[in-house]
């Protein structure tokens, strides 16, 4: 898709990315952040879906089935996800290299989305020592999430 120009950049995030650092966690799908040539409009995901179907993959609603996993393509939706995608690292699954969001950015995205499962993700990343409290405090301040971080810290870290 990169070579064909359907996407400009991508990075795995969500639970699949989290598992690079923590124990395995149950998840129903794989999430991929993407940069689309003409912007982040959801309708503009159509070229991605068309490309995948043309290459033999089947669509399941907004997702594409790749092997055992429904894969969701999500346009980078704010400055944090754009940075996370731009500064993603290269990981490897069974010899296949792929870009994956760093632990600190995963935690930051989770802090900004703030659902119970996101809080669990932050705690898992801290527990696995993939990030430190100090790093996350600095990063959240830099990205305008200092208040969210304080709330999280008071609630979960005592």
């Amino acid at each position, binding site marked *: 898709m990169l070579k064909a120009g359907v996407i400009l950049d991508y990075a795995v995030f969500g639970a*699949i990315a989290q*598992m690079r650092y923590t*124990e*395995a*966690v*149950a*998840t129903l799908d794989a999430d991929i952040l993407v940069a689309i040539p003409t912007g982040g409009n959801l309708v503009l995901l159509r070229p991605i879906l068309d490309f995948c179907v043309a290459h033999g993959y089947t669509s399941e609603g907004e997702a594409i089935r790749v092997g055992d996993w429904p894969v969701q393509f999500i346009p980078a939706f704010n400055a944090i996800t754009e940075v996370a995608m731009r500064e993603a690292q290269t990981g490897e*699954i069974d010899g296949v290299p792929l870009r994956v969001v760093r632990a600190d950015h995963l935690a930051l995205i989770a802090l900004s989305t703030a659902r119970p499962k996101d809080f669990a993700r932050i705690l898992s990343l801290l527990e696995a020592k993939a990030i430190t409290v100090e790093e996350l405090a600095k990063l959240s301040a830099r990205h305008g999430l200092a208040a969210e971080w304080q709330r999280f810290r008071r609630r979960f870290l005592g």
Partner: protein
Amino acid sequence: MERYLKELLARQSAWQRSRAALPWAEKIRLAKVMIEAQRALRAGFDDRRELEKPSR
């Protein structure tokens, strides 16, 4: 008892750390197994509730 519990928790913690240190691909495979186990448990639970419904 307290000593036993502390040792148990230490062993559990070490085991969890060892699971976190598995290769990424292996953990993704484990996640798939977890989903299948969840589905099987849910299906079993639903079957059991069906069986336990009072007969008319």
